[in-house]
């Protein structure tokens, strides 16, 4: 017996209670309700996943729960139906597990904020929509969750709305996401046109049925490519890939727990999840898969380069997230769905950890985010320091921490990939370079924040303090997960076996390739870290000298390649001026035509009024003229 709806309902009930009744109870009750509901969701997910695991035949590990019919008209019959399979089970556990830890952390982080209750209402709402996204069987329902998490992202980025900068960042995130959503929506309609259904399980059945019975497939290769590319546009928006990544760095304007939960661990991975969910479509289109892989690899290295030159601790982590998401797309693009999801999971652990750690630093430094004004915090914030160290090593890919295993598997898959667009060697080279840069910028961040001399401003020095337990406990748990999560996943291929009903058992790579990739990725991890220690700890003047030597190059990178400015000039302003032109056209052409019509009629009436002189004699003349014309005509 599965209780799928009870995964989604607890946070929904908690948020309604806090929204409607919260004003009558204190922060403690609000926090307990909000955190407790997510914990409950986690426990139910755990229970349901366990039941799923207990089903002996792996192929039948699917459970579903229909709540009610949402839309039914014409050919559309869309129920609110939740489906749990190994993939959505894993996602639910990540969302509710990491989500609970971040809720707990937020209690401490947001305790003094006047918007405490509002914050937890938004956060719970996010969990609801995210669970809806991963549990939905119907693509339209998935789209509801998809847009819903976008809404929560908008609300939470602009949480401190009194600062226009935050509000702008929220709007930017929403609008850029909507550009992606346009692609998603069109993809959705194309799917319906091809399959006559939006249910993923039905689509899969139609395809496997066609293959089994050697019938023609419901979609031509070209159609499959178009569908996959349209959906990928949606994924690019949500998961911040080139060219739609620009919103994510700005999204750091939100409170740090939000960055951890939404903009690192869960929401931004929705695009990866969606492609993994629709892997059977992408299997039909090597071209579209190749595009996914290339965009992923390009984003991975591009964002890593930008990350090198950022001085805001959260911005570095944001570009790191973009880059790591690129890895995930690289993985799903080359068909390594299992490892894409595996990296999604480990990334959720260590990136949430890193963000929460940075939050702890920011909290301790009274809001300071500039790396140049940190340093030497290792003694003052010991728990944060050690957990952050674990996160840094994990993301850099140091054995035996989580990032090593997932990244390694992706690199092997990329090395062996055969895509029509680009050779596997090139993808591997790009991925490896990005791994090197990742190790370097993370080492840089770590050194600048925790080691070396303390550069904190004097007035902030005296109240540097370690965070309360609600903040450190999540850090410790996530550090443990970052440390052992990867090893646990590859132990006896447990993670791959869990997902095997969807993706089959992964092929073993040739040992030579495996060993070569392993050695290379370890080398770049240590190399990157060592180089960053050399640059920022041993010879702190070196980076500045380098930056000065390559002045314009450094500035170009530090200013994020001026992409925001480019978009401003080629998209934002033109659209705005088209609007201005439309407004002028409306006023001076369309409306003037209307008024001229009215004026013309008025003028005609004025001229005709001269005939109505009131003089009977004149009327008689006109009458006579009229009659003679008539007689002439009718003759």
């Amino acid at each position, binding site marked *: 017996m599965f209780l799928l709806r009870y995964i989604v309902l607890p946070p929904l009930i908690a948020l309604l209670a806090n929204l409607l009744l919260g004003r009558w109870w204190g922060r403690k009750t609000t926090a307990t309700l909000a955190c407790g509901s997510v914990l409950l969701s986690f426990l139910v997910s755990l229970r349901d996943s366990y039941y799923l695991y207990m089903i002996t035949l792996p192929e039948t590990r699917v459970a579903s729960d229909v709540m009610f019919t949402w839309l039914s*008209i014409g050919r559309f019959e869309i129920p609110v139906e939740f489906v749990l399979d190994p993939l959505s089970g894993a996602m639910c556990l990540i969302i509710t597990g990491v989500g609970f830890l971040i809720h707990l952390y937020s209690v401490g982080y947001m305790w003094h904020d006047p918007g405490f209750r509002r914050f937890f209402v938004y956060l719970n709402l996010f969990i609801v929509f995210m669970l809806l996204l991963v549990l939905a069987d119907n693509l339209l329902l998935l789209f509801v969750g998809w847009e819903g998490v976008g809404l929560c992202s908008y609300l939470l980025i602009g949480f401190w709305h009194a600062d226009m900068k935050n509000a702008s960042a929220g709007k930017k995130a929403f609008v850029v996401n909507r*550009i992606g959503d346009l692609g998603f929506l069109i993809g959705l*309609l194309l799917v319906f046109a091809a399959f006559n259904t939006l249910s993923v399980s039905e689509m899969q059945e139609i395809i496997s049925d066609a293959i089994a019975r050697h019938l023609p497939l419901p979609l031509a290769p070209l159609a499959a490519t178009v569908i996959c590319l349209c959906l990928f546009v949606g994924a690019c928006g949500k998961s911040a890939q080139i060219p739609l990544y620009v919103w994510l760095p700005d999204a750091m304007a939100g409170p740090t727990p939000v960055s951890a939960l939404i903009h690192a661990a869960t929401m931004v991975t929705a695009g990866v999840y969606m492609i993994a969910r629709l892997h059977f479509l992408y299997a039909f289109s090597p071209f579209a898969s190749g595009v996914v892989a290339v965009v992923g690899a390009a984003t991975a290295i591009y964002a890593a380069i930008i990350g090198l030159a950022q001085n805001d601790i959260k911005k570095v982590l944001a570009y790191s997230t973009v880059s790591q998401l690129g890895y995930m797309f690289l993985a799903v693009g080359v068909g390594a769905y299992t490892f894409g999801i595996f990296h999604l999971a480990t990334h959720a652990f260590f990136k949430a950890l890193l963000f929460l750690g940075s939050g702890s630093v920011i909290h301790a430094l009274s809001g300071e985010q500039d790396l140049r004004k940190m340093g030497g915090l290792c003694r003052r914030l010991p728990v944060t320091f050690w957990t952050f160290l674990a996160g840094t090593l994990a993301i850099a890919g140091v054995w035996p921490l989580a990032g090593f295993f997932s990244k390694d598997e992706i690199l092997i898959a990329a090395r062996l990939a055969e895509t029509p667009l680009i050779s596997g060697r090139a993808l591997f080279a790009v991925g490896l370079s990005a791994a090197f840069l990742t190790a370097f910028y993370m080492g840089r961040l770590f050194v600048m924040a925790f080691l070396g001399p303390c550069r904190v401003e004097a007035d902030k020095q005296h109240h540097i303090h370690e965070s309360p337990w609600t903040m450190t406990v999540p850090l410790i748990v996530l550090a443990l997960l970052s440390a052992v999560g990867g090893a646990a996943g590859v132990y006896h291929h447990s993670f791959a076996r869990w997902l095997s009903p969807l993706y089959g058992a992964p092929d073993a790579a040739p040992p030579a390739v495996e060993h070569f990739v392993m050695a290379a990725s370890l080398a770049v991890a240590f190399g990157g870290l060592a180089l960053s220690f050399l640059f920022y700890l041993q010879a702190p003047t070196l980076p500045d000298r380098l930056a000065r030597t390559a002045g314009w190059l450094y500035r170009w990178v530090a200013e994020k390649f001026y992409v925001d400015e480019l978009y401003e000039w080629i998209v934002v302003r033109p*659209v705005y001026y088209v609007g201005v032109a439309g407004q002028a056209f409306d006023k001076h052409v369309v409306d003037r035509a209307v008024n001229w019509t009215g004026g013309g009629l008025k003028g005609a009436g004025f001229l005709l009024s001269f005939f109505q002189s009131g003089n009977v004699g004149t009327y008689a003349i006109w009458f006579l003229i009229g009659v003679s014309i008539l007689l002439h005509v009718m003759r």
Partner: protein
Amino acid sequence: MNILSALVFFPIAGALLIAIWPCAERTSWRMALIASAGEFLLSLKMALLFDPNSGLMQMVEQSEWIPTFGITYLLGVDGVSLGLVVLTGALTPIVVLSAWGSIQKQIRAYLAGMLLLEGAMVGSFLALDLVLFFLFWELMLIPMAILIGVWGGPRRIYSAIKFFLYTAFGSALMLVSILSLAYLHMESRNLLTFNFLILKDLILPPHVSLYLFLGFALAFAIKVPVFPFHTWLPDAHTEAPTGGSVILAGVLLKFGVYGFFRFCLPLFPDIAMRAAPWLAGLGVVGIVYGALVSMVQTDIKRLVAFSSVSHLGFCMLGLFAFTVEGMAGSLFVCLAHGVSTGALFLLVGFLYDRRHTRDISEFGGITQVMPFYAAVFVITALASAGLPGLCGFVGEFLSLAGAFLSQSLPHARLLTVAAATAVILSAVYLLWMVQRVFFGALSNDKNRRLADLTLRERCAILPLIGLMIWMGVYPEPILARMRPTLDMLRTFVMLKRGQIERELQRNDTAPDIAPAPMEKPGSPADRPPRETV
């Protein structure tokens, strides 16, 4: 008394009572409140009596009116009009509730006008006799023009006259079409009637129905409004009092769409299908154009007015896709737009009552003084922007999907993709406005003392918020009541179109049998009797 007649005449009686009964303004306001609430309950009762499994006209009420000219008093409700009548019933009490404190002069006349308007609107939705329909159609023009002209803003006279003349121009041509239609029916079947249920079986040759169609379509296109007949709308909206705007956006515009559904499709299916690419195309132009122009507005109300042009474009696109999904989407957009845009106008009115300006640049950081107001405004804006889970999405998605899957509409996919850009643009213009009005620092000192919504205002807006969520989360009961009617309407349209084509082919083979009467719209009645061949 039949419930439909009660629905039509109850508010009119209320209007008369309020107009002639001398009592305190507050008492008349309460009377209007009770009357409109009673009307709403009546409309709910009608919805309960409505059989969701039937696509036929229900609760039909018929009696002789002017037998000499074949004019009957004929009312009926089906899946197309049901939702719109309930929407009318739901919006009017809200408008009456919001009028107190907002309307500064002659509130009794205002309330009487509003109730009269409600009666006329309900009558138009329910009337199935063309003369009766036309009567109610014109009847609703007058109170609306007066509402704008008396209680409106600084340019109210210009706007009221523009609104009146523009729509009257359309309806004049519609009257010509109505008369010609009845005349042609009498000629071919020897029965003078204005009963729509009989007239809709009449089959006309294409060159005749083209003119008649144009007469109807122009009236409805102006009402929708379809680009480029929309310019009366921003002016009327900007100048109208809050309640007038709510009713104008919420109900009045829907008459255009309703008219296409009710009259244009069944009467002239062949022409409607031939005109579909044009009208759907204009709808798409309206969607994009309205959104772009909306984006650069500086007056909040004007912005919302242009967003209406954009939203109503979805109605045209879905309707002329000739798929059940698209038609349902079109109708659902009507209802959803009525709720969400009605609510937006109401909310803008609340702000105007406090600050007497609607200029976006006058505001900023309003959330800090009016948090509740900001919350409901953001929800409403998101509903209007088509966020899934709120009312706007269901209709827009169904319209788009219906158009995308349409077999009869040429370039359907291209049109759909163009229309779908509204997904981006609506987020841009609404959220940008929200950002400039509500977020940022509280920079203008005049806004520092603004009070949050009063209890009366909350009572007016919260039901609409509830409706937005309900319609987005569980639209099934609404769609279920449309389904049989739309199925039947579509079948009827397709069948009749086939019949017309067959008849045409027959005429092609034997061209000299019964050539169709050539009509010039403008002089149908005094034409000499046709010489039979």
